[in-house]
């Protein structure tokens, strides 16, 4: 192999600094969340303790953290399942041109670029004018879908752009119905990408703030609760909460990566099981 050019070392340094820039602050608050009981929002550390994490588990100290976590979790799972199902259906639909597909595609892109506060405001207005109460599981849920569905659909486009239609033709030649072809051939082949769509659906929902701001009603989701804390909490308890929820996100991402790795290793060893179920 050729020796590395000098530009490699320059770029590698920039890349390293970029990673430091990306992760440095998060790592810093992770360290600071272990402040002693007397410690403040910046260094120096005044002792090391679990004091601020303990505070999180005492409800009166910081509001309804665990309730909001539960709601965010439930909402995230709802959005995840819906995003996967609707995106796969949409992705299949867009493989053939149908009347209005161009307009629908424009709408998907619009959903991606329209400022999130507009969705929040508009949905909130509709519900209030219709006399319906806003609730995280109805108006909040729908508003979040306008953010997760475009991502899910774009991933499905990328997947089907690379999908070899010969597999389906083979299935059809052997007499499979349209549904059998999808169920036993297409879905098993695209399964790993569906995990990706699920990851987008869950994490984007779990962290979404603007779209739920005016649509979640009196019961806050976790990001709204954290946002509320930024205005009136001046102790490291907010770092402790930030650290915990970041760790939770990392665990979710880790589980996802592990599953993908396992699936692809099994496939490499045993071949795809597409079609075996028939």
């Amino acid at each position, binding site marked *: 192999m050729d020796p590395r050019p000098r530009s490699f070392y320059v770029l590698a340094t920039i890349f390293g600094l970029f990673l430091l820039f990306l992760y440095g602050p998060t790592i810093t608050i992770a360290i600071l969340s272990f402040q002693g009981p007397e410690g403040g929002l*910046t*260094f120096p550390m005044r002792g090391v303790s679990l004091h601020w994490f303990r505070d999180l588990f005492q409800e009166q100290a910081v509001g309804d953290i665990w309730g909001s976590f539960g709601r965010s979790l439930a909402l995230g799972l709802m959005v995840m399942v819906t995003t996967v199902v609707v995106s796969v259906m949409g992705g299949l639909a867009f493989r*053939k041109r149908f009347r209005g597909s161009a307009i629908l595609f424009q*709408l998907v892109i619009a959903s991606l670029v*329209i400022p999130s506060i507009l969705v929040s*405001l508009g949905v909130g207005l509709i519900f209030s004018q219709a006399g319906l109460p806003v609730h995280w599981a109805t108006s909040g849920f729908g508003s979040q879908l*306008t953010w997760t569905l475009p991502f899910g659909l774009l991933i499905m486009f990328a997947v089907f752009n*690379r999908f070899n239609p010969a597999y389906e033709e083979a299935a059809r030649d052997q007499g499979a119905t349209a549904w059998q072809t999808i169920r036993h051939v297409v879905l098993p082949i695209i399964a790993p990408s569906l995990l990706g769509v699920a*990851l987008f659906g869950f994490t984007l929902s779990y962290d979404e703030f603007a779209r739920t701001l005016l649509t979640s009603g009196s019961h806050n989701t976790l990001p709204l609760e954290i946002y509320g804390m930024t205005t009136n909490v001046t102790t490291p308890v907010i770092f402790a909460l930030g650290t915990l929820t970041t760790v939770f996100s990392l665990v979710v991402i880790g589980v996802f990566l592990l599953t993908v790795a396992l699936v692809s290793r099994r496939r490499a060893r045993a071949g795809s099981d597409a079609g075996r179920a028939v």
Partner: protein
Amino acid sequence: MPPESITVAGSFGTPPLAERAPRQRALASNHVTGWLLALPLTLVLLAFLVLPILMIVVVSFWTATEFSIVPAFSFENYEFLLGSDVTWRVLLNTVKYAAVTWAITLVLGFTVAYFLAFHVRSQTWQTTLFLLCTIPFWTSNIIRMISWIPFLGREGIANSALLSWGVVDQPLDWLLFSDFSVILAFVHLYTLFMVVPIFNTMMRIDRSLLEAANDAGASGFQTLWNVVLPLTRPGIMIGTIFVVTLVMGDFITVRFMSGSQSANVGRLIQNDIGLLQYPSASATSVMLLVVTLMVIGVLLRLVNIRKEL
């Protein structure tokens, strides 16, 4: 990666006459299946995107009393909005944030993507480093903003470091709660929206083109400028669309990182909402929507998103 498979348009050539009748029936059923499959997507977008936007447009012509909003057809919200020089200053500020953030994320994102795509040789390392760049995307933006406080505050890490190195005599006040911290947070949050599409486009560049440039005597920089950069344009455009729309529609980063000392259009809307002045908030929203769509309209002319996925 297999080459792109059959394009949608490819299956619509004119068939020989004898085949046309069944073919047309198949096309009709294509339309029906297509619509059924796309129905859930369409319904969600109609109910939670199109209707809300229409509602905002309608309400922007309503009037408000102290406690409620009243249906009307009045231009007073727009008259007030467009007649106030605050609006124009804030709009200018919004565009300024978007432009500065765009320029920085573009240079940074391009550099990072270029390193990943052309300098990292092992595929395992490439995947690992790429993942490291994208993981923050799946964590909370608010937390990532909060995490700048210990760095930038008066007694933060940056100031203590500068003081102890003797660079400054007294702590810098403009590190936190300033335009500087707002831009810093934007760059921190959104650079990966540049990195991912640019990296994606770069990975599709045929490596033999670079060799050809090299053989023809181009220097490294000439190859970068005349070969890589033009071929990366679609990725740059997609990244630009993301960064510009995210920054223009933002309100939370500006509120939090400027300590409520700066404003952008999103903050105007949020202020009105806080005062229950929904018609006025709606008029401001319509203005933001128009400006955003104009920018995106121009950008979308320069790139075909579906082809780039």
